[in-house]
């Protein structure tokens, strides 16, 4: 009687991705003996961390059945602001916060335009993408900011032992948001909003507010990722983050999120980000030429989703 099919079905869902991941890892380690080297795995963790943090926010947005195309340029803008502040010797913590708060503010604007004024997610965030990119370039007329203090490098480019700090941050944020989704009313409300916004409203959920907050979270996480990028590269790059949004959306969907809303998980997204990163990594390891990389990436994304469906159908 005390069966818990919910948990089992969750496991199965995760298991799809797990199958995929294992298939990939096996192929990768056959193709390149270096793949499973500790150094490379830590490498992967570090590389995946920044897109991973963006994907956390994107998953939240996808759960409420939204989409946010502005993450890449918000990241760039926030990274620029932090870098400029650091270069002006503002205390690092304040510089970092300033970037994140700026991102949150932009997210609030996008969120309000969508949740309150009813603009389509796609277009409102597309417009914000243009605005934030223009603003990022404008801060320094397009010139990167470099020569940042080495203290600033710690969060984005530092290591604790051999493990990258940003990788650790990514894991912590994943766990945090997984718990938030599972154990708080706010978290549960996102699934209700994404599943049926009207029903959620009639259940007393502050849908407009929570919808906007989700955009704030997404943009703040993107901004934080942008700050980490600036820290990692020891330079603020106004053109950073191009194409980040598509990567984050793909990772969420590969991780099981549904673009029609109401479905998505942090663990799945974590796996999705890893999977995408493995693809590039393994191509680089085996020395596949660039053009083939793009083709292969497309093919693999399709294959992954088809495999996913095939496994689903088996159940």
């Amino acid at each position: 009687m005390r069966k818990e099919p919910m948990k089992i079905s969750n496991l199965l869902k995760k298991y799809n991705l797990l199958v995929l991941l294992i298939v990939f890892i096996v192929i990768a380690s056959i193709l390149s003996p270096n793949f499973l080297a500790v150094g490379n795995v830590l490498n992967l963790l570090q590389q995946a961390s920044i897109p991973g943090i963006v994907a956390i926010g994107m998953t939240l947005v996808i759960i409420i059945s939204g989409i946010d195309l502005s993450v890449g340029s918000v990241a760039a803008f926030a990274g620029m602001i932090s870098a400029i502040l650091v270069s002006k010797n503002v205390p690092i913590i304040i510089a970092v916060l300033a970037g994140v708060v700026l991102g949150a503010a932009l997210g609030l604007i996008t969120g309000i335009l969508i949740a309150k004024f009813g603009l389509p997610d796609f277009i409102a965030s597309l417009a914000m993408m243009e605005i934030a990119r223009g603003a990022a370039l404008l801060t320094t007329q397009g010139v990167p900011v470099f020569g940042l203090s080495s203290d600033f490098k710690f969060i984005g480019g530092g290591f604790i032992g051999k493990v990258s700090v940003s990788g650790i941050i990514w894991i912590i944020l994943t766990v945090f948001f997984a718990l938030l989704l599972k154990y708080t009313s706010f978290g549960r409300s996102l699934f209700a909003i994404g599943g049926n916004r009207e029903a959620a409203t009639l259940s007393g959920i502050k849908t407009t507010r929570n919808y906007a907050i989700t955009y704030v979270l997404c943009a703040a996480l993107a901004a934080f990722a942008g700050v980490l990028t600036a820290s990692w590269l020891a330079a603020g790059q106004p053109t950073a983050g191009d194409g980040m949004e598509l990567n984050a959306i793909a990772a969420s969907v590969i991780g099981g999120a549904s673009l029609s809303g109401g479905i998505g998980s942090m663990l799945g997204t974590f796996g999705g980000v890893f999977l995408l990163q493995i693809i590039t990594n393994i191509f680089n390891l085996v020395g596949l030429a660039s053009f083939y990389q793009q083709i292969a990436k497309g093919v693999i994304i399709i294959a992954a989703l088809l495999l996913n469906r095939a496994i689903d159908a088996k159940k």
Partner: protein
Amino acid sequence: ADDVMADYTGKADYKIGFSQCTLASPFYVTMKEVAEDYAKQLGVDFVCVSANDDVTKQNNDINDMISSGINALILNPINAEGVAPAIEACQKADIPVITVDRNVNDGNTAYVGRDNEEMGRLVGEALVEELGGKDKAEGKILEIQGTAGDTVMMARRDGFESAIAEAPGLEVIQSAYCDYTRSKAVTATQDLLQSNDGIVAVYGHNDDMSLGAAQVLQEKGVEGVKVTGVDGLMEAVIAIKDGKYSITTMNDPGSLLKVAMNTTLKVLNGEDYEEFVDAGTGVIDSSNVDDYVDDSLAFAAMK
């Protein structure tokens, strides 16, 4: 090269348009900024539009500028043929086209640029020396590539590889295309270090990417790898001074634009002008780095 650098003094009352291929790199941004300042100084009307690396947009931009009544166009084309229609339109409207940095195959009045193959070759030669000369040098060199199909990329690649070919002990490993951007270079370097031993040097098609590679090497605690690039980016020049970077070649975008503006005004005023100006280049390494360090600049200035 002194008169190349001299500021133009002729009178002017013109509207000059500048179609820049992109602003996605400090190199191009510096071109724009120098041009704007210099135009102000000269008192000419000046507009710069970036095509964001989109040939279609570049053509449209130029057509729009023609509509807005420019007298001359300074053009940094995305590639040699892609703006042919817009150049034709300029010709019809009697607007002289002065290409800068990159050239077109046809239809321009003058070209102000540099020899990118030469830059690559200079780096290659200097690197071979650093590694002990043609006969002794051995090991792998990681070549971090710019943008696919781009003439600048190909020239820098060919020049460099022709110099390296002289040293039989050296082998070049090419990275995936990193579009001249640092973050892509960092990831590529990380991955390539995993699968390659015996790397003795890195050559990037620009300094921005090489700096990314240098950072990875430092993080991984790999020592003794020579890092080289192209552009004379001040961040790289300072790194040379600090002993973290080996070689770069000059590619001062500011001087390019000043010369291009000068040439443009000469054309408009009916004065004599050179149809091809090579703005020159030169190696910066630890032996001469002190002459070039100036952190008020983004790029080392030609001396």
